[in-house]
């Protein structure tokens, strides 16, 4: 799929000197084939402590009941569904990167799709745990599935958005998993080929007998394309349906037609932010700066800027419609976000998501790694507050003022949320130890065309438009993995 020659004005997707196929394999498989370093162990210890906290808090909830959370007669959902929507949203970048960017032939996705997809799967797992644990009777969590049963003529309610949700999330999870795993096959075969003993056996089973024949590659690419086609509508549908949990209700602040596109944009927004958060650390710790370059970072920042601005427009639209509709309750709900008791949550939401991301208009900020990392976290804090504001701030003061109430989280609420972060990072840290965190095969595809050394060759070969060359050199300045001095001689 890789283009055979590429214009010099495009920035390199792989930097570094003397990059060979072998070096790519060696670089990327270093964490898989060696004992982990101290950084990994520290991270893993913290993450698994978090995961244990999650197990404890969720078991506590199961044992005593949902009353252990801070919910009440007025606020029936709070941190649980906030967490659910937040995690589902985070899970959106993976499919977008693997499916839509694949269809659009965005080769830069090749370096980040593996981690993004893994992250998607882990995020959806975290979301799914919320779906089960927020139920009053979680041991009956299978009842919303349309299973044939002997309870009599009992069926599910296909009118209920929660049933749509069950379908949406389970489809999304299974398709993402299949797509991710299919992509892994050639890389697993590579590990198998280099491994010995029991590891070889395990990877051999996992790689489904990959032979690397032309026919295999051809089928592999076809399957990937087909799966991309299947996944593409899911990128839009999943969060559309999640948003319908709110949009189809009567609740002022929920009952808005703008929710589907607004939620999808928000999901991609938060998903890319999470990819950014993870990859900026991963590339440093695992020494993958040559494969995840400044170009990738900036490209993701641009997407964050775009989706953040879409979300901002959606916010404005909501306010306008609340004003324009003349709906008494809706107007109050939106005013309440600023002047009500949860004004600080509203400020976090609008501040983090809209105001902070507008900084990304500046290239200096887009290409500054520490600032990008901080902003990516700010975005996810903002997106958590967005869901909190939509859910809690709408519910706590709806139609009948006698029932207005405040929501105060308990230690269990907080532990389940912090714990779910632990689960997520535990899974992610295990992932980078057993699977290549970058799709080796796909990166190798673009080595000959889009790498820095290929571009250098072009430069050395000469005969290029001088203006374009200058442009290229200038673009390389922010790259932290490029020796800009090398280009003085050229």
């Amino acid at each position, binding site marked *: 799929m890789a283009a055979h020659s590429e214009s010099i004005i495009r920035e390199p997707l792989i930097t570094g000197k003397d990059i060979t196929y072998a070096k790519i394999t060696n670089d990327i498989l270093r964490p898989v084939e060696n004992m982990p370093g101290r950084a990994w162990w520290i991270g893993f210890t913290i993450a698994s402590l978090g995961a244990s906290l999650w197990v404890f808090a969720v078991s506590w909830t199961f044992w005593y009941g949902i009353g252990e959370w801070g919910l009440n007669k007025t606020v029936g959902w709070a941190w649980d569904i906030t967490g659910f929507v937040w995690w589902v949203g985070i899970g959106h970048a993976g499919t977008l990167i693997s499916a839509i960017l694949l269809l659009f032939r965005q080769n830069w996705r090749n370096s980040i799709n593996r981690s993004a997809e893994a992250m998607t799967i882990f995020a959806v797992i975290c979301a799914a745990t919320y779906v089960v644990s927020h139920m009053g009777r979680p041991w009956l969590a299978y009842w919303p599935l349309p299973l044939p049963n002997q309870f009599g003529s*009992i069926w599910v309610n296909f009118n209920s958005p*929660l049933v749509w949700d069950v379908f949406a999330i389970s489809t999304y999870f299974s398709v993402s998993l299949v797509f991710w795993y299919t992509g892994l096959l050639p890389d697993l075969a590579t590990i198998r080929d280099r491994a010995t003993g029991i590891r070889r056996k395990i990877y051999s089973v996992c790689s489904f007998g990959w032979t690397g024949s032309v026919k295999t590659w051809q089928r592999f690419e076809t399957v990937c394309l087909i799966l991309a086609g299947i996944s593409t509508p899911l990128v839009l549908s999943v969060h559309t349906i999640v948003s319908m949990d709110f949009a189809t209700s009567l609740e002022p602040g929920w009952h808005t037609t703008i929710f589907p596109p607004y939620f999808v944009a928000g999901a991609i927004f938060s998903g890319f932010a999470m990819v950014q958060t993870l990859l900026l650390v991963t590339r440093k710790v695992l020494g993958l700066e040559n494969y995840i370059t400044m170009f990738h970072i900036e490209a993701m920042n641009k997407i964050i800027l775009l989706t953040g601005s879409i979300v901002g427009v959606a916010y404005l639209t909501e306010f306008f419609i609340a004003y324009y509709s003349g709906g*008494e309750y809706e107007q109050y709900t939106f005013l309440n976000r600023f002047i009500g008791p949860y004004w600080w949550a509203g400020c976090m939401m609008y501040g983090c998501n809209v105001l902070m991301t507008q900084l990304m208009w500046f290239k200096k900020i887009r290409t500054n790694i520490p600032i990008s990392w901080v902003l990516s976290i700010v975005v996810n804090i903002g997106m958590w507050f967005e869901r909190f504001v939509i859910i809690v701030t709408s519910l706590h*003061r709806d139609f*009948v003022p006698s029932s*207005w109430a405040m929501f105060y989280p308990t230690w269990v609420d907080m532990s389940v949320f912090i714990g779910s972060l632990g689960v997520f990072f535990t899974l992610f840290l295990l992932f980078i130890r057993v699977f290549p965190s970058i799709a080796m095969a796909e990166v190798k595809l673009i080595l000959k065309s889009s790498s820095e050394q290929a571009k250098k060759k072009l430069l050395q070969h000469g005969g290029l438009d001088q203006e374009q060359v200058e442009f290229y050199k200038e673009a390389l300045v922010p790259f932290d993995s490029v020796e800009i001095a090398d280009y003085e001689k050229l």
Partner: protein
Amino acid sequence: MDSNKKYWKGLEELNKTPEFVEKNKHEFAEPIPIEEVLTGGGLGGKTPRRDFLKALGFGVGAVTLAACQKVPVHKSIPYLIKPEEVTPGVANYYASTFEGHAILVKTREGRPIKIEGNPHDLLSKGGLSGQAQASVLDLYDVNRLKNSMRDGGDYGWGQTDGFIKSELAAIKAGGKKIRIVSSTITSPSTLAVIADFITQFPTTKHVAYDAVSYTGIIQANQNSFNKAVLPHYYFDKADVIVSFGADFLGTWISPAEFIRQYVQNRNNKSLQNKKMSRHIQFETGMSVTGTNADVRIPIKPSEEGLALVALYNAISGTTLPGTKPLKNNIADKAIAIVAKELVAAKGKALVVAGSNDVATQVLVNAINSQLGSYGTTIDLDNPSLQYSGNDAGLVEFVNEMKRGEVDAVFFLNANPVYDYYNSKDVTDGLKKVRLKVSFSDHADETASACNIIAPNHYYLESWGDDNAIEGYYTILQPTINPVYDTRQAEHSLLIWSENPVKDYYTYVRKNWDANLLAKGGLSGQSGWETLLQTGFVKAAENPKGTYTFGRDLNAVAQTILDHSDLLADGKVELQLYQTVAMRDGKKANNPWLQELPDPVSKVTWDNFAAVSPTDMKNWGYEDGDVVKIDGNNYSITLPVLSQPGQTQGTISVAVGYGRTLAGPVGDNVGKNAFPFHSLRNGTFQTTATVSLTKTGDNSPLSQTQTHHSIEGRNSIIKEATFTEYLKNPAARTGKGKDHKDYNENNLFWQDYDHPQYNWVMAIDLNACTGCGACVVACSAENNVPVVGKAEVGRRREMHWIRIDRYYSFDDNGQGGVTKEKEIARLEDLDHVRVVYQPMLCQHCDHAPCETVCPVLATVHSSEGLNHMAYNRCVGTRYCANNCPYKVRRFNWFNYWNDARFENYLQNDHTLLVLNPDVVTRFRGVMEKCSMCIQRIQAGKLKAKIEKRAVRDGDIKVACQQTCPANAIVFGNANDPNSEVSKALASERTYYVLEELGVQPGIGYQVKIRNISETEA
């Protein structure tokens, strides 16, 4: 043609070869090597097939046996000989009496499970208070004493009787005093027993006192008219009612009866006749009555006397000596207007005062006399007997004890150690008494200070009678065998006084045969049986006399003015009051009552100091700040609550809290405010001056409602003035030309058919007084769990019906400031209007909860009801979120067996109070009002058995049934002649949040206030 054909299997058989003959001898043609196997190496081999089979067989058998662990078997044994009157599954109703009201006790399989009003009850016509509804729970209170006790240890009844008889004999010989101390006894038979006891022991005196006393009124009537009685008031005959601090709709004398009377001039029927009474309330703290008043003027306790003097002057046209102008300008102006209105309504006017001060009540008598109220709105000839206690009598008794003159004392339904203003005097005095006996069924504060506790039966286990109003006699009959080894107090007194009648039933029977049956035109066995069925007799009324006040008022006025000066000493004035739920605190151990939100403050499980919002700001208090209240040589610490309508410079504190030996539910809930009482001119005064100091602590109160204004949302609450109503009965309902039909363009929703029944409800906001009886009735009927103070504080009370209470503030007489932000800018927060709205599941025809449930746990019925299938619910709480009325309740915990909720539900004995027709709910499921579906089903079944359609009024839901105001009407909307159809046809009907298109099934009638536009 028989056949001789022979069939042969082969030539061998035909030919019978020797080989064949030999082989044919054996069963199997080929020999089976059994012997070989058994003797040879077959068995000796390693794990032969048979061994394996044996092992397998044994293994399976052993595992099967091991799995057959015996599960506990609870044998249920049916009646071998069925009691004639008990049919399992069918309720029996017994006529009885509660605090003078005729009631019906619903029993199932021999146990009382619900108290219902007797529809023929003269006082409240079937309405009952929350206290009456809750009383059934106390029967199952496991903390009741289980046998008689002496000095804290068990003591058999035989021993007890022996001991007391010998003591009494000795005391009689010694000639010292014997006292029977009780709260007011309205039972003629009990009074007769006491009289007999006095005959036997002539040094005995019966001292009756009431924790919350009405001595002031009784004394005043003695002074004014020579009749020491508590009058019977007729609020239904009054067009203008002026109350000075009398909470007659909440706690004053006979509230359930007064609610019924009061509402008769304000309900739908009255409005349709273009008639509405006018009610002006002058009071200190916000009472239920004040919230219902058309005009409410906050006054300090020290201004009450001055205001009455001013009113008297204005009505009589004279000026009493010493009259001082009221400093309170608004009250002063109001008095002038009120006087005119009262005079205009002469003969149909009524002035009442809550004060227990004799002088104040004498002045009220004078005013009523001027207004011609005697014989019309006040009846002194058929008086109320509900309270006859005498404060001076109790004080004298305590002094007698202190002087060591008393040798024996019997406490019957009296707890002076808790509710006497100087309880140390009582405990000190009791130490000098030789024989101290309490009939209390709890080891309460007084009983614990006694030698002997001879626990009384609970009223549901007792025989007896009641006489609340002169001429109205109700019968008390037991509905269950005594649960514990208790004995009726009267029975004990009969035994101890060696009465020839040994058994109280016979005594009651004789008393009725001799004295009472005849009053109702009954006699003999048949008369008695009729009485047991109807529950009461009514004697002919005494002719109502008119009384004219003729005494000199100068001294009275002087006393009142002196008292005012005393109170107005610059400190904070304290007003003591009773809450609707807890009253005088005798029922503090009842969790239903503790969790019943106070109608006004919505506080549960606590008392508090009510402070006006202005004072809160001036004094720097926040809600829940704990302050030390110091006055009358007593001090307590209580959290403060901002109470709109509370007069500035005053606080109100409820009595009835701070019990220390009420039982695990009632102990240490709130603080005891009784000691703030003081004795003045022979009566206990409910006012005092106190000083407040902040302690720095904050103790949050558990309120069921924390936002108090309606935020201008007039599709939830609609109210109009009487003037507007007269011009247009549909005023402010939003009906008319501009009224949009929200169901017109209904694209998405299928309409449900209600072929036979369409159960709906009508609630008249103008009738509802907010008393909360419906909340308790609903809890009792539907097994609603109690969750306790902490959970209520987390906004998780489970009540299926709640009463929303909204304040609106007057802005320079413009009225109607309801928005939080605007209220914050107001300076005058004293003039507040209140509206109550009972809120329960609206049973929407297009219910938003139904569409969102993923598992179809909440669905619509063909009778217009919104059902909840608990067993199907998985607990996503989506339905509750999507309910615009927020009436769904989630079982956050397993209230039935979670050890952290140690309440009545977890006790095998108390569980017997549950209604067997209503399932209890497990944790994790949603619940809500079912419109008493079990009652609907029962009504339909009864009609079916009788081969007829359900008649209107056959089915009454629990909230409707107990409502003393008849504010709730339930019925079939398909029947155009049903009460509910007629009520909903009222012009005032509107539907809450109608514009959402959910088609609620409950119609509300606009609240009407009898005020003119300009009036503040």
